[in-house]
Each structure stands twice: as C-alpha cells, then as structure tokens.
C-alpha cells in the first residue's frame, strides 16, 4: 500500500505495480493537532499538519511508501518532516512544473519515468506497458463514472446532494478502483430511479483548498443551499480529464500529459487556466453563487482569490469567501455567513 498526497501524483503507476494507492488526507474532522503544530509550526496549513499528525501517531504505519510532489510549500515541508521523523520504507518526491509548455511536459515526463524506475527497483518488478494500459482503463472508467454522477447534479432537482457526493469521493481515494467502479455503477443505477430529489434555495459551487469533510457541505445544505458542483482537488480536479491513449505515444507519456494538463491547482501558471474552467463549471451547472473555502495558510488559493472573485463578478456570480481550518464542519460563524449569503442570493434572484 502506497500513500500519495496530491493530484499531480500519477496513481496509475502505483496501480500498475500491483500496489493499492491510498490518498493521504489526514483527519478529515476538526481535531487537536498538537504534534502537527509542534513539528510543522502553526503557519503551515492545517491539512499538512493533520497529515503529519496522523503519520506521527503511527496511523499511516501500514504504508509501504509515500509519494509526493513539489506542489506547494505545505506539501514539500510535510514531506521534509515525514522523511525525517516517520519511518516509511519507500519515499519519492516528484518535481512538478508549474507550466503547460512542451519543455514542462518533457520535464514532468522525465520525473514520472524516474518515479516508475524507483518504484520498480523498490518492488523488484517491472511495470510493463500492458499493465499501465490496464490501469489507465480502470482509472478512466472511474473518471467516466464520476463524470456521470456529476452530470446528474446538473438537473433542476438533482438526485444526489453535495454531501452524498463528497462521501462517494472519499471512498474513491481508499478502495481498490475495480471495486469502486463496480459500486459506483450500482449507485448510478439506483440514482436513475431515485425519487427523493433535492430542491434548494440556491445552486452553489464550492471552490478552493483541499477538503474531505462531508459535514462541511452538509452544513451548507442544511441551510437550504445545494452544492451542485465544486472545484476541489478531492473532487472535480481529481476525476476531470481522462488519460487519452494515442498509438503514437507510450502509456507513460499519456499519463504524464494527463496529470500535468489536468484541471489545474492554484499552483499552476497562468491562473486563468483554472479560472476559465471554474467559469465553465459555473455556467454548465447553472450556479447562483460560489463559496470559496480556503484553509488558513493555503497561500496559492489565497493569492488567487481577489482575481477569481473579480472574474466571477464579471459573470454576475457572487462569491462568499470563507477562511477555514482543514476538517471544519462548518459550524457557528460559517453557518451565519452562509445563511446571509443565501439570503443575498435569494434577494438578487427576486
């Protein structure tokens, strides 16, 4: 079993090696982070502190390896500390370029190749093109099924809530993809005849930092907002864009292209790539308002916020900016602010 941290880590390679890839998500609930705070200092995002806390407590001891990328300050420092204080047998960090240019693709591809070689050496196996092809098919199937799930959310009264969708996604990071695909197919069949559809005061989109706590979405939906789509690395940015197989390139090249070109994180340049895809989603899912939830000290998203807010405003979409801690359930002040935001959206509509 191998832990991976960020959506720029190609899971298919781990899968093709016969490993079970598991996403490192820390505690997805509000919790005390004494060790995380002591080792990483409080100005590191609570997501990184939470992951480290779990690692230091030995709750990731079942992992045979961890794989990370140079994606943001929080992630790289988490791995620095992990390397020095947690004894995981295999450890690999990829340099992930921040651009989409051909040289950036070449560099990322060489990094992915090095990762594959390192993994082969560690496991004493060879990861063949055939096994990579098979893994691509399995992972593309997951992406396709998740896309179908999201399509249902475009309905006026979707058969699935944002809270339920987040629960589906959380299982996706932890179970074998073949099983997940089977399970999701059944769910989609069930949803096609589901009667209790969700009505709402406003159709919302959640954007921003990493988030895995369905209770946060639930707190919004309890107030009458319906989260119909999102732009999170634990949801849309995870499953968007399949690996495109092409006879002229190797499966490894196809994987590399997909991961660097995928729906971008705020770390990537230019930011308009991300903003445009958010605007597309907002239009396709007929979003009334956007809730930006940024984990404190998640600097890439905090920097993007003024620019994104302005672009959304240009499309007539208001934004509610929430500063949160990772794992927050959305209680207290957050509920008050969401309530006021929903009232504003209703007033705007009328």
């Amino acid at each position, binding site marked *: 079993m191998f832990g991976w941290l960020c959506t720029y880590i190609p899971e298919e390679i781990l899968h093709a090696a016969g490993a079970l890839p598991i996403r490192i998500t820390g505690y997805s609930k509000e919790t005390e982070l004494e060790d995380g705070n*002591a*080792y*990483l*200092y409080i*100005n*590191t*995002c609570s997501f*990184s502190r939470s992951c480290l806390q779990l690692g230091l407590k030995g709750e990731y001891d079942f992992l045979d390896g961890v794989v990370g990328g*140079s994606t*943001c*300050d*929080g992630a*790289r*420092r988490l*791995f*620095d*500390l992990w*390397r*020095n204080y947690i004894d995981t047998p295999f450890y690999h*960090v990829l*340099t*992930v*370029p*921040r*651009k989409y*240019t051909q*040289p*950036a693709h*070449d*560099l990322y591809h*060489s*990094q992915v190749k090095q990762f594959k070689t390192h993994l082969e050496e560690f496991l004493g196996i060879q990861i063949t093109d055939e096994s990579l092809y098979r893994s691509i098919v399995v992972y593309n199937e997951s992406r396709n099924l998740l896309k179908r799930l999201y399509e249902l959310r475009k309905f006026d009264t979707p058969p699935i809530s944002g809270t339920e969708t987040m629960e589906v996604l959380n299982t996706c990071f932890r179970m074998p993809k073949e099983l997940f695909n089977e399970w999701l197919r059944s769910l989609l069949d069930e949803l096609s005849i589901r009667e209790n559809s969700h009505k709402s005061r406003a159709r919302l989109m959640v954007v921003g930092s990493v988030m895995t706590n369905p209770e946060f979405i639930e707190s919004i939906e309890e107030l009458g907002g319906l989260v119909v789509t999102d732009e999170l690395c634990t949801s849309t940015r995870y499953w968007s864009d399949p690996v495109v197989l092409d006879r002229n390139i190797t499966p490894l090249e196809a994987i590399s292209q997909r991961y660097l070109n995928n729906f971008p994180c*705020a*770390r990537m*340049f*230019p*930011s308009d790539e991300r903003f445009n895809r958010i605007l597309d989603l907002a239009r396709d899912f007929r979003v009334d308002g956007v809730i930006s939830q*940024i984990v*404190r*000290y*998640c*600097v*890439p998203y*905090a*920097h*993007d*916020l*003024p*620019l994104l*807010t*302005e672009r959304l405003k240009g499309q007539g979409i208001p934004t509610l*900016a929430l*500063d949160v801690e990772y794992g927050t359930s959305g209680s207290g002040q957050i509920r008050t602010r969401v309530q006021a935001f929903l009232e504003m959206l209703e007033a705007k509509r009328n």
Partner: protein
Amino acid sequence: MTVSQGKENKLNSIIRASRIISRMNQASPEARKSNTLYYQMIADYYTRLLEASKEGKFIAAHTVFFPTEILYAMDIVPMHTETTTWMIALFTGHSADMLSAGVELGLASEICTPHRGLAGAFALGVLPRPSVMLWSNLVCDNTAKSGELLMEINHCPGFFIDHPFQRSEDEEKYLVGELRDMIHFLEEQSGRKMDWDRLADIVARMDRQIELFREINELRKAIPTPFNPQGFLQLLTIDYLFPGRPEATKYLETLRDELVERVKAGQGAVSPERFRLMSLFIPPMYLIGFLEKISQEYGAVSVTEPFFTYWGEGALDPAKPLESVVKKSYMLPEMRMYGPLDERALNGIVNCAEQYRVDGAVYYADVGCRHTCATIKLFKDVLDRIDVPVLTLDCDVVDPTITSEEDVRDKLEQFFELLEDRQ
C-alpha cells in the same frame, strides 16, 4: 483592482536616508569605507529607478532570487520588489498603509507582509509603475503567486520563471529554456537585444563576487569575528540588487580588505566577543538598529547564516553565460532549503555551526513565512545533536505589530543568560 490612493513616495525617503548615512560614514574616521559604499549604492539604485520612472524608461519589477544579471546585460532598470518593501520598513519604519492597502485588495492575512505590502504599495502608487513584472517560484508559494495580481494592478505584461524543485540535468536544461523564453519576452517588450558579451562579462564578475563572498565568510571564522553583528544583511542586499555589477565587486573587495586588517589586528566586531551566533532567516527590519545595539551590549555577533551567506560549491563559466546564471541559481545559499531537506541539506547547517564555532542560533520565525517556519523543529533537532541551543523569535520582517522591541529584548537577554551559564 484599485484601492484608495496615497502619493507619498517612500523611495525618496530611502534615498535621503542612505545619502545621509553615507555622508556621515564618510565624515567619520572610524567608519568602514565599505559601509559608505553600501549606502551610496542603495541611494544610487533607487535614484536610477526614480529617474527611469520619470523619463518613461523601461523598468522591470522582479521578485527575490531573480537572475537580475540578465536585466543588467540588457540594460534594463530593475526594481527588486521584496527588497524594496523591506527597505521601506527599514528606512521609514512605516509600512502599515501598504499592508492595509494589500488587505483592501482582498489579500488574506496569511499572505506574508513583504508580498501583501508590495501589492499594497503598487496599488497606492508608492512604487513606480513597472513596464513588466517578472517573477519565479523561488523560494515559496508567495513569490510564485504574487506576479499575476501585480500585473493586474500595474496593467503590465509579465513573465513567470518556473524554477524546478530539485537539481538534475533535465531540470537545469528546463531552467535554461525558461530563461531563454524570458529573454525573448523582454526583447519583444523592451525593443532591446540581449547583449551576450555583456552577460558573459557580468557572469565573470559574478564568479569573482562569489569568490569574494567565500573569502569574507572565511574571515568571519576568526575569533573574534571581524564583521558587525547584523552586517550579513548587507551581503544579502549586494547579491539581491547588484549581482555582477562593478560596484558590487568594489564593495566586496573593500569589505574583504577591511576584514583582513581587522583579523590581523585581532579586532572584533563586538568587544568582548562573548556569544557567536548562527542567524536563521531574516530579522525584523524595523528592529535592525536595536538588534545591532543589543548585540554590542551583550557581545553577541552573527558569524554565519547558512541560508543567506553560505554559497554552494562550484564556479561560473563566462563562455556559457546562460548556463552559468542557472548554475548560480542553484549555488545561492537560500537554495539549501528550497529542494528536499535531506541529510545533505541538514548537514550543511551542522557544518556551518561547527566551522564557525557557534554558541547558539537565533531563529527569526517570521510568522508570515511558511516555508521557513515549518523547519524550526527540524533545524532545532539537528542543532541539538551537536549541542547548539536555538532561540526561536516569533516576529515579522516588515510588520512591527507582531512583536515589540521589549519582547525581543527579554527573549534575547534570557537566551544570552542561558549561553553564559553553558559557558
């Protein structure tokens, strides 16, 4: 992207203050000549910038650890953004309006003050409007993410250099390509051509300057150490603002000669020298005068700064100027903590502590700096292995509301007591 405008030109304050210090230094027989040169250089740098702005010349604003050599080779006037925010805090002691303006733009409080203040400074019109914005991801997310907002505020085009995280042949090749693309961008925007011969000359001078940095570091090993307690900040600024410039060579040679004389004479920067310190990261700029004073009072002096003055190994080759600029970016002292903090990187700190025979380390924990603060525990543990105690001082490099002079005094005094007890 607008905020309420204020027209105070803080750059004039830097120029005025630098000229005054320089003149006072000149008039004082005991003052170091290098100090006079340093303040002249600062005044000249900002005078050139303001004149260029008045004359409508092409100005390139750029972030920290940027290959300024390229701008000098193209005869483009540079404006080092973070250093300018620090300089404003240092020389005017007043950056609250810039920080508020940054918040007004929508920047969250977790964005470090040099970058929040910088966005605010541009929005207020405190800094000249640049022709282009240039930035890279060295060495943190704040730097990587600052450029696009600054482009919007200044209504100017920009170029982002994607600096790879680790070092390999592929990564160096990628960075060379990034620099080539940036040169092409600058040629298009400025109408100037890259002067490759000039870049080669600059690289040759830069190579010499790195040698001088190393010579100065060697001299600082002496007991008592000859360089003043917070003097390393000058060394930083020299490379930030004047890499490969003839005046930087002159400054470094002058300083080196002064230190040679002091070492020969057994003359220390503080007398008596009681505590040899390692400085980890940057002290609050608005407290520099106070820190210098308390260092003199207690005989404490920073003798090594692994992430600011301790250059990596290697030499530059003027015959391969662009490759050398890339190589230099990997030799920068700050690069020790950019890539993975593996055993090799951590050993660098231990080596510094041992070679410079430090009694203790002061960790300036800038509360807005995530990529440095996350290393406090790690570095403390590494230094603990060789029995070097570490004082962590929570502070902010620009914002004086985070910590007070009294608080810093209390903590330093307690630390000096601890060091004394150990002696």
